[in-house]
């Protein structure tokens, strides 16, 4: 989904600066897990606005449906039944792309311009540049991107970059009936979360807090959690996500160094030839052989 090229802050497999004269407000989606009722209106709105239809799956005995994210399901509700202090808690988390400030997918992507980060913080896939290698999946700390079986391109939540670009909120936000989904500037969302957390603490959730993991530079999709000390309760939301050291090594300083080393071998070879000359069969030896033949 293309947006104005002026608003692209970062572009995959590109080593020079992106257009950066125009500054835009950083946006964020806030998912207040504590007021979510699990109605899946957000899932339906996502399908409708983006006009994507997943295949009808089968009931696996729990509310999660579809069972997992896919190329056609960019957001899914994940339901966890947890016992806390002798009481059942139904923890429902809307899963999808977190729009990291330091996106692992973008870092891993080898195709120029297949993944971009807009100045407003949204991380978007430009499928027409996608080559289908799946490196974005390898790079993502949240296991979000999915390769389509139909066209071998990678897909995920766009944070409705097309709607946001024209001043509208994402489709899921518009559909949420309880106000569990909020959208605005990142600062506004943090302020709003702060109020919610104070309220939750008063109601006995002493560990309530905001999930805005700093290991990936913060995210543009944040959660208000009742148990912010244990995010893994919410269907294994990672406690301290970061770009894997493996990915950092794979896509980091090693490659320019290896490139230099290979160039070094090529030039050393050339100059070795120029300085030392070729290694030819000695004339003396050839004459010896000729003598042998003659005798």
């Amino acid at each position: 989904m293309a947006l104005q090229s002026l608003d692209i802050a970062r572009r995959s497999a590109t080593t020079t600066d992106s257009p950066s004269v125009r500054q835009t407000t950083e946006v964020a989606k806030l998912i207040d897990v504590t007021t979510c009722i699990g109605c899946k209106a957000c899932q339906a709105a996502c399908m409708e606005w983006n006009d994507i239809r997943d295949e009808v799956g089968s009931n696996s005995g729990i509310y999660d449906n579809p069972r997992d994210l896919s190329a056609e399901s960019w957001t899914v509700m994940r339901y966890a039944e947890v016992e806390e202090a002798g009481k059942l808690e139904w923890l429902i988390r809307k899963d999808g792309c977190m729009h990291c400030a330091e996106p692992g997918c973008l870092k891993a992507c080898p195709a120029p311009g297949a993944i971009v980060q807009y100045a407003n913080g949204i991380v978007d896939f430009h499928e027409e540049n996608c080559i289908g290698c799946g490196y974005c999946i390898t790079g993502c700390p949240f296991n979000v991107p999915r390769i389509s079986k139909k066209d071998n391109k990678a897909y995920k939540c766009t944070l409705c970059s097309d709607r946001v670009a024209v001043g509208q909120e994402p489709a899921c936000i518009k559909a949420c009936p309880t106000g569990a989904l909020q959208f605005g500037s990142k600062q506004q969302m943090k302020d709003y979360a702060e109020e919610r957390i104070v309220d939750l603490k008063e109601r006995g959730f002493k560990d309530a807090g905001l999930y805005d993991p700093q290991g990936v530079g913060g995210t543009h999709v944040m959660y208000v959690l009742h148990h912010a000390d244990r995010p893994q309760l919410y269907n294994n939301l990672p406690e301290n996500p970061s770009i894997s050291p493996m990915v950092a090594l794979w896509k980091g300083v090693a490659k320019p160094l290896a490139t230099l080393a290979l160039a070094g071998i090529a030039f050393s070879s050339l100059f070795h030839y120029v300085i030392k000359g070729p290694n030819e069969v000695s004339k003396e030896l050839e004459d010896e052989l000729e003598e042998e033949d003659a005798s």
Partner: protein
Amino acid sequence: MIRNPKDLQRYTAPERANHWVVGICFILLALSGLAFFHPAFFPLAQLFGGGTWARILHPYVGVIMALSFVRMFFRFRELNRMTPADREWLSRVGEMVDGNDHNMPVQGKYNGGQKLLFWALVVCMALLVISGIVTWRAWLNLPVVVVRFGAVIHAATAAVMIGLIMVHIYAAIWVKGTIRAMWYGTVTRGWARQHHRAWYRQMTGKS
């Protein structure tokens, strides 16, 4: 070029063909692989019809290379066993590089450097095949930790192997009269006597 009937046969036609299949695959793999290695090399993907085609073709070419390499491994394994003479040669490789090979220890069909390269390539190929399979998303979807590890191994090993092959090719260019062994299989007696004296003796019965 009229070949001298006294030239020595170094490689048979099947050996040459096998080597060329591996060599062509390597070049295709290196060019398409580098395209994904660093953005500076991405334009190389155009040689294959674009990034998507490069991504599709690379692993299949890899399969052909792996199979041909296995065949080549069994052809040349015995000839590449390291001996004390090879270690001696390796310890004095500096003289060779300096362009003064007259006092180098007598070598058989392969010298210590060639043998070391052979075994290094065997290790590289094994690592590349295993790590290549685990990252082949068209067929497999393994746990992300495994794929991440595979991606690092694949990229690092590939860089090492490209370096080794550059040395391999340069050595063939530098030592005159070598490349013809891979084109049509023969070398001159002078070449054999100077560079692989023990093999020369074995082939001709002369010293």
